């Protein structure tokens, strides 16, 4: 777990965000801490910096025009979301 998430978690505990029965206590005061905890950190999102295209066929046309090779990441569920 990265430092940012550890700090967020500590803040959430101090605000009483973790209840004894394991049900996360979500409130108007704590939602922001949980939001930060759940959303990926900058390190976890680094892969996005490659400027991913989202459809193979359009990328093939672009690669032909640019005379570049293609790197395809193909998953069950689109890797950019909906997995």
């Amino acid at each position, binding site marked *: 777990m990265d430092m940012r998430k550890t700090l967020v978690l500590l803040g959430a505990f101090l605000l009483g965000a973790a209840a004894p029965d394991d049900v996360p206590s979500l409130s108007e005061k704590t939602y922001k801490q949980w939001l930060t905890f759940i959303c990926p950190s900058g390190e976890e999102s680094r892969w996005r*910096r490659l400027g991913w*295209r989202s459809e193979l066929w359009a990328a093939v046309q672009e690669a032909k025009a640019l005379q570049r090779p293609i790197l395809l990441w193909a998953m069950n569920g689109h890797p*950019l979301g909906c997995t």
Partner: protein
Amino acid sequence: VQALARNFLCVADEVWLLDHQDTPGAKFFRDYTKHVPAELGFAPTTKQGVYAMTPDGEYLGGHFGRHSRADTLAMLKESLLKWNELAQKKALKPKPIPGRAPNRTWGVDGLPSSAGGQAGAKAGLILQVYTRDLPGASEKTPGIGEYKDFWNENWIDFSPDELLGFVPKGGAKGAVPDALIRRMGRECLIDNVRGQVASWAEGEIKKASLQTEVVSAKEGLLTLRFQGEFTAEAGPRGYDCTLHGKAVFDSRARQFRLFELVAAGIRKGPTNNFRLPGEPASPQGVAFIIEGQYDTKEKGAGAASPAPTATASTDPSGGERRAAGPAALAEWDARLRDLLGEDLRAGRRIRFPMKLLGRSAELVRFDTSGGLQARSDGSEFLLAWKDLSLEDRRNLAVARVRDTKPDPDLELAAFYHLACGAQIEGEGLLRKLPASDAERVRAAFKGAAK
């Protein structure tokens, strides 16, 4: 990995659709997979993986399924070597790949069907949805083993009319329409932290409500507060959560400027992706935001990495690395680039040990957008200046010291030696310089934190 991947046009797509649809892209993919070596070992039901290919669909390299960083790096290097040979044979002239902002993934047209959206029809509001396990009361980190840092990403899109459902009508308080919150719950309040799962069926939703309230209104901007609850159950599987959040709605533009909604509760039951039967119920969270809403400025794909800095650390050779501040490093980097540019224009050949490639390389050219081209073993590599490690820049600075050893050459090499922690080499060069020049180099390290 990212430095080498920038030589390729990178694309992500849905593999089941590529393997089964009757579209040009799917046909292209299926033709490509016919040329993939058998040892890649596709599974009978899926071909998910990472694949390198020419724009004509010729196989360059690839991995089925998940692989380590080292394997990926090796695959990229090998694929790039093959591509460079082909490009040389065909006398291709690769053009720079236009950057694309890391956010705004789906553009103004909205989500395509491959991401579960209705491109064109529902681009009024697109929310990015993240799911992650939350820590239990007795845990410091959520989940177990390799799964504890897992998270997943999803999207949901709304038409311009639908998004108005989040704004109270005829008063300060209201309820978000049932159809809207039920769809959000059905599609997004799911346990996909460890992998793809099906949406809830309508009949599996036991409870779904979201209250919205205007807490302030100023110059057409309404600040809204959300509160709600959701429960779904399907046999042993279920998710029971509460929701809280805030949004800022621009009533003049009829658009949301900010959207923050969090669900937190208990998930239970197995899924078809790594949530195993017998695992106890555990806390899980879901967050909805507008993609890029916290960005202070747009960053292009080629400009997203922070500028490298020489920070205090221990050099592998045993010397203590001295810290040069970011401004000093940027200044010396600019000087190094200028002098290397002059070297190339003068026809000098700069050969240097390139850490990134793990072998010797020759600098071929710079371009104005910060790219550089290096040649190694007959292949050429396109890289960004920022991909070069401090050690690579040191090696360049040292490689360009001319036989006559002019002061500016030594000064530059001394700076990078010191920045890399090579005290003996750095100080050795500084002793050959006039005192004022040597002091200028040492000044770059004064006042910077170690």
